[in-house]
């Protein structure tokens, strides 16, 4: 006779060493099995969409860094700048577009490294954390030489980028890429073959193709379930249509697949940066845009591919100095929906692996 246990409600978070921020999960348990998960969000709500309505278009670049996903400041800036440029009809110089691509891809690498490191800690592999942050520091050094910031840059501007890259930076960037590619193989060596790692990730937290699509998952989460959708390919922005790269896809939809997709994405990012550095044209990096810019009345929605998925930016202008409304389509928020589907039926011990594998940033979820 199967043993019946009473239903138990368990709170995980908001302060929990492995919730990657201030997420609270209300778990309904049957013994050790999870029957339902209800994420409680809003612990980091920073009302950034509202604040943007009170700041001018130029000032808002500083807010997109902080109020949205803080690991990918440059991707956020790019999404916002693209939206406002489309609204105001600003033509971005060619060199600036290449520089933007280089920096977005560097930021993708940095973001995936943070994810891999913290997920490694969750699964009990501390070495990975230390190694990932070792490489990440080198990316941040590259950032600091150009933008002056390590995490928050305020480097992209409406109509280009703030300043050109300093002399010798491209060489330093190439050096880093040469250094970085073998490191990805090292991560493979350290983790992929490891039986403990495999046991904790293979077949765990499966989400099928149809469910992933129905839940609105995007980015690596969707690609691990077999949805070969990448905004960089589907609706190229900046200069992605001129660069050659593959979109890694896995079909199993489990934690291991998501891990493999992200590792491959880092490789592809390296490939993109190499090409962009090679093709980098000379010229201006910034179009002339007045400080008090007033885009014409209208609205625009721009999609970009952030490391976490489709990052949408919807900006409405009423012809004034400040946006009338800004709506951010946050990839983490949609991916968090898929979490419930993934977790149902698994044991408590698997929560950490599954939650880590979807790579959410709470600042992006709550905004």
């Amino acid at each position: 006779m199967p043993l019946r246990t009473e239903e138990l409600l368990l709170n995980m978070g908001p302060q929990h060493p492995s919730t990657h921020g201030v997420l609270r999960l209300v778990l309904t348990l049957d013994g050790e099995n999870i029957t339902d998960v209800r994420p409680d969000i809003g612990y980091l709500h920073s009302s950034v969409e509202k604040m943007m309505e009170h700041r001018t278009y130029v000032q808002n670049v500083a807010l997109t860094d902080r109020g949205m996903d803080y690991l990918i400041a440059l991707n956020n800036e790019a999404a916002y700048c693209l939206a406002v440029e489309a609204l105001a009809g600003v033509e971005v110089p060619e060199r600036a577009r290449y520089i933007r691509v280089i920096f977005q891809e560097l930021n993708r690498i940095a973001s995936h490294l943070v994810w891999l490191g913290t997920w490694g800690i969750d699964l009990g592999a501390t070495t990975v954390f230390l190694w990932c942050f070792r490489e990440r520091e080198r990316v941040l050094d590259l950032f600091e030489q150009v933008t002056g910031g390590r995490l928050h840059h305020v480097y992209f501007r409406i109509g280009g980028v703030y300043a050109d890259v300093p002399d010798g930076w491209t060489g330093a960037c190439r050096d880093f890429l040469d250094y970085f590619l073998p490191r990805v193989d090292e991560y493979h060596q350290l983790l992929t073959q490891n039986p403990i790692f495999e046991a904790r990730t293979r077949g765990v937290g499966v989400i099928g193709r149809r469910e992933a699509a129905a839940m609105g998952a995007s980015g690596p989460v969707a690609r691990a379930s077999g949805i070969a959708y990448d905004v960089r390919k589907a609706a190229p922005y900046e200069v992605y249509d001129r660069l050659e790269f593959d979109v890694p896809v896995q079909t199993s939809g489990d934690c291991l697949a998501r891990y493999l997709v992200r590792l491959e994405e880092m490789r592809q990012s390296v490939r993109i940066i190499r090409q962009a550095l090679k093709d980098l044209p000379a010229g201006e990096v910034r179009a002339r845009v007045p400080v008090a810019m007033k885009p014409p009345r209208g609205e625009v929605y721009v999609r970009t591919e952030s490391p976490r998925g489709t990052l949408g930016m919807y900006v409405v202008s009423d012809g004034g100095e400040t946006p009338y409304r800004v709506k951010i389509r946050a990839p983490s928020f949609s991916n968090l929906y898929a979490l419930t589907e993934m977790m149902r039926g698994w044991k408590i011990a698997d929560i950490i692996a599954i939650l880590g594998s979807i790579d959410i940033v709470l600042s992006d979820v709550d905004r």
Partner: protein
Amino acid sequence: MATGLPPAAGEARSEPQPRRTQIGPLAEVVEVLDSLPGGGLILTTVESALNWGRASSLWPLTFGLACCAIEMMAAFASRFDLDRLGVIPRATPRQADLMIVAGRCSIKMAPIVRRLWEQMPEPRYVISMGSCATCGGPFFYDNYSILKGVDQVVPVDVYVPGCPPRPEALIEGILKLQERIKKEPFLRRQAYAARDGQAGAR
């Protein structure tokens, strides 16, 4: 607290503090020693030895709120390696002496920050890392959800400005805190607190 609103600054301080003292029965010995001639010297020596120990093993709570937490993680990671200074993150507030409030604290999160702080044993310290934790920073104006400074809910010892502060800046803040701990009249304060029935560790 039930309303989810943080207590106002004045309110937080006037709440009765839980009685916690770490030296218990030794309190009387300290008091007697302090009143003896020459006892002060002994006390000070013992105190500085104790303080050296306390300052060299500050265990912070692993507790990150927002962007600054990433820089805090970087400070614990390979390049800056806070373990060198005896700063080893603990996952539970009951084993931690230091709370690094890294990032913006929303009004919904404020009671939890306060509760975590209350769960930490005396003597406890708080470092406010970044502009947001210090005073709201970029989220000060036009904002309805972010607390204007975490010192409204917990008393802060060291403020580290920056957005985010470099890991070096955080380490410098921790060094500043260590300096302060080394100068603290720890034993006497605990003893008198035990006598007066309140742990007035600050």
